């Protein structure tokens, strides 16, 4: 039994509506929206998704956590990403650009969370000491898979995986993300094997 804190992305709590209850069958789970106050201790496994990953990384650089999972996050705020957040107020545009080629899911986007991207502090990756699992997405047109590789490069004790999804990994493949979180909670030092 571990203690998880989940920070969702542009969809808010809806992003974790599969993962949170299923993880809660075996672990203590709380969901902290990107704008909520965030409290962790040395036993917390902090999981961030999308803009939540950036917030989680920044937090882990300055606060105690036992382990960190960064899903579809970014190491730098690129002009491309900023541009996307401006266009993503158009719901259809957001939906189509967020999912990968194999998915017909429709991720939720809360406009006020798009505007947050610009204001997020850039994480000091070199200060993150805890075991970290970085999960990127091959078809991520929003954050770009390369940004997850940079997170991996900048964090000392990290493993890196890539899912065959778009930016909306948590909406496209919630069960697979759940399996990675469960495996990481049990053995943070072992790279989870992507099954299937």
């Amino acid at each position, binding site marked *: 039994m571990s203690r998880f804190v989940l920070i969702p992305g542009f969809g808010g709590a809806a992003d974790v*509506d*599969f993962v949170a*209850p299923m993880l809660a069958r075996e672990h203590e789970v709380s969901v902290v929206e990107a704008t909520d106050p965030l409290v962790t201790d040395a036993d917390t496994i902090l999981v961030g998704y999308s803009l939540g990953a950036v917030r989680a990384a920044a937090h882990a650089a300055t606060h105690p956590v036992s382990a960190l999972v960064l899903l579809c996050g970014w190491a730098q705020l690129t002009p491309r990403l900023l541009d996307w957040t401006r266009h993503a107020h158009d719901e259809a545009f957001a939906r189509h650009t967020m999912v990968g080629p194999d998915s017909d899911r429709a991720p939720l986007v809360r406009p006020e969370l798009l505007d947050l991207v610009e204001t997020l502090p850039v994480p000091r990756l070199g200060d993150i000491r805890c075991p970290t699992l970085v999960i990127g997405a091959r078809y991520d047109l929003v954050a770009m898979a390369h940004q997850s590789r940079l997170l991996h490069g900048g964090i000392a004790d990290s493993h890196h995986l890539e899912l065959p999804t778009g930016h909306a990994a948590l909406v496209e493949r919630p069960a697979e993300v759940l399996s990675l979180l469960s*495996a990481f909670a049990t053995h943070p030092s072992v790279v989870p094997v992507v*099954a299937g």
Partner: protein
Amino acid sequence: MTESLPESRSHVTPVPHTDVAIVGAGFAGIGLALRLQRSGQTDFTVFERAVAVGGTWRDNTYPGVACDIPAHLYSLSFETNPDWTHVFAQGHQIRDYLERAADEVRPRIRLKSPVLDMQWDEDRERWILDTLAGRHTARVLVLACGRLADPYIPNIEALEGFTGELFHSARWDHDVDFAGKRVAVVGSGASAVQLMPRIAEVAEHVTVFQRSAPYVVPRADRAYTDAERGLFAKDPSEITRLRSQLFWAAEEGFAERAGDPSRTEAARDRALTHLAAGVADPRLRERLTPNYEIGCKRVLISNDYFPAFERYGVTLVTSPIAAVDGGTAIGADGSAHDVDVIVFATGFLAAEQPYAAHVRGRDETLAEHWAGGMRAYASTMVAGFPQLFVLDGPNAGLGHNSAIHMIESQIEFVLNALAPGRALEVSPAAEDAWTRQLDARAEGTVWTAGGCESWYVDPRNGRLTLLWPGFAHGFRGALAEAAALLALPEGNPV
């Protein structure tokens, strides 16, 4: 390899010996045989009682028989098939697939060889198998006998006096022409739901005996385009990619059955909306509405079962069949129905597997060992039965994802266990711990507390013995960990 047993020495009749004996040539037996051979272990023999390989897909040839897991996922990961024509395969297509897959190991398969008796020889630390084709010995015995392999027909008063034709869905009589016939279909499970509409469209009249109503959801089938199939053939990584997508999507189905009430509710709504769309008459709809929680039994997929009732004027009897009087089938509700054919879609002997009575370990038979319900360490190894593995046996089934993923997880476990330096026997304590953990996990779930009776549960004690109460990926992970514990050097095998 051939060797003689002491008692037969003087007769010079050599008893053939094989390193690994596999009983059954369905997905599990063929899958293990392929993996063994491809890893260079060629000293194995597959014994199959029937005249052909294929197991389930050889035996079930009823009209409409099809798989309800997408074909690319319901295939062996190491034997993929670019040619699946549709998202869901027809039964005969899966049978053909297994026939083709078996070609590679054909010389090591013995057909028409029912294994009648399997006995552990403590002195020589090997298994003695008596088959219809003679005696064999083996270091390792793998039971790949399936668990939906032996048809179940309920006890029905005066059934032997029935004047028409009768048979079980898994033993279809293709000589019977349904045109102009009045037919009783007994049961409303997965088999009945597939075969009833096919019979109703040709028969004069169909009566369904429904003991409990099933939840049915839409079947989203379609043909693959030539371009898709061409791409699968040219680039096998496309199959891997599709399998992964299908697998993880199916995994989400577990949340409907355990852990997430809002998803259970959504699933129930989906099934009841499908019922409403398929049946106009509210009274009929009412009688087709289940009175237990969704997921308790297998959730069925069909687009033509519900509409068949009104389209073909099918009679629904909401009670089991209780007796037969000449050419009349009588329901437990007293209703009488004149019929020419009775089709039993009444399922299989599942909780008590017929093979178990014929496997004798150190001190007892497997049936005796399983008197309190099936159980095994890692769902695969049984205390008191050294060098034995059971595939697709205790707690190895699933309601929400592909059985083939489960079978492959077990095959991997067996290959791990057969590696040098592994224990080939488990302690009663290890088996107990595994069983206790599963029993605890099953408690209060939809399968044990959902208000239905299903073949997942052993009717003798209410234990969930045939279903794995978790994710499919969790099964694979748990078996990988369980296999690692078999490593011997520390001297502490499980």
